[in-house]
């Protein structure tokens, strides 16, 4: 399956369990160019070694003004420390795709 996007992910604060944290998520083409139209963005933290997710009620995904393809993800809340995955789903040009990035939470 052809990948329709890549991402960069930058934490605003250190990732600490039981503390709301935020990050900047930027979508790019697979070759690293800016993506103009990204919709249906979803972010789901998942702990693969334990097989569970986390509390997401306070999570918000907001487009960053003047920065195409960039979003601020706030209210991320990890219920425990350890190795997590940030599972990202989005639609680009009508095609839905997903990827996961790794995160270590203290």
């Amino acid at each position: 399956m052809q990948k329709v996007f890549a991402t960069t992910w930058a934490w605003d604060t250190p990732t600490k369990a039981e503390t709301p944290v935020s990050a900047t998520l930027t979508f790019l083409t697979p070759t690293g160019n800016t993506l103009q139209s990204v919709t249906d963005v979803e972010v789901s933290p998942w702990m693969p070694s334990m097989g569970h997710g986390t509390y997401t009620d306070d999570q918000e995904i907001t487009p960053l003004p003047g920065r195409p393809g960039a979003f601020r993800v706030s209210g991320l809340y990890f219920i425990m420390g350890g190795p997590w995955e940030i599972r990202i789903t989005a639609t680009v040009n009508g095609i839905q795709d997903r990827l996961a990035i790794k995160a270590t939470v203290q």
Partner: protein
Amino acid sequence: MKLWRITLISLASWMLTPSPLALGCASCGSGGDDPMILYPNEREKLYMGLGSVAGFRNIGPDGAPSTAGGPARKYLTTVAYGHSFSPRGFFTLTVPYVRNVRDDASRASWGDPSLSGRYTLIMTSIVEPWKPQVQIVGGYKSGFARSLRNTEEPKTLLDVFGSGFAETRVGLDLWYGQSSLLMGAAHLVSYPLARDYDGSTYQPGLTQRSTVTLGYRWAPHIKSLIGTNREAHAPLRIAHDAAPDSDQLNYSAFVTQDVMLDQLTMLRLTLSQQGAYGPIRNAARSSAVTAAYMVSF
């Protein structure tokens, strides 16, 4: 003359009947399985334990510690009832009640009840002190208590009272209890039953638990035990696929002090430490203290 005969027969019977404290078991008092055993002369027994667990830390797949999350302390009230069906075997029904505490909030509910049985394949004997007591152990633990996978308080996990999975277990328990120096070993295999959560089938891995116990009987009614458990879990499977880095390994240590108040009642104090030493992986570290009262009738 008749009185002498009766006295001698009584004395011989008493000497050849092992002390209840000799008839222990390696996995009893280890903080994991059956909280009590019934001795051959006991028909029924009640157990009430009060415990506190705190100091939770997560240990990741690389052995690094991190925040455990959830309750800061758990208070456990455990009630167990044992009934013998022969001098060699008995069943025990164990029901825990758990109170989770975090900051100023707390929630309480029943934990997962369990039903277990023990059958003595080889009885210990004072005339053959080198022969260990050998028991076969089996049991079933229900998984109805709310767990991490169906919590209604996903931020605080205060309503998590169980593992979320029923399991069956079987094992062997060897125990040398005829001298002042006591020792034993046990090995139990637990098979958790698969269960669906959010449309996916979760199958926790097979668990192997080994226990080694050493002890000393200071007096006919007082004994001390120290021991260790090694618990290894095979990887979790979600929708038939093994979750990466999900196998678990934990080493715990425990100290138990038993005092028989009389022939029917016993007090037990147990201190245990999960994640005590060794190459721990994907497991939890915590400290527990449990005081228990047992009475047979």
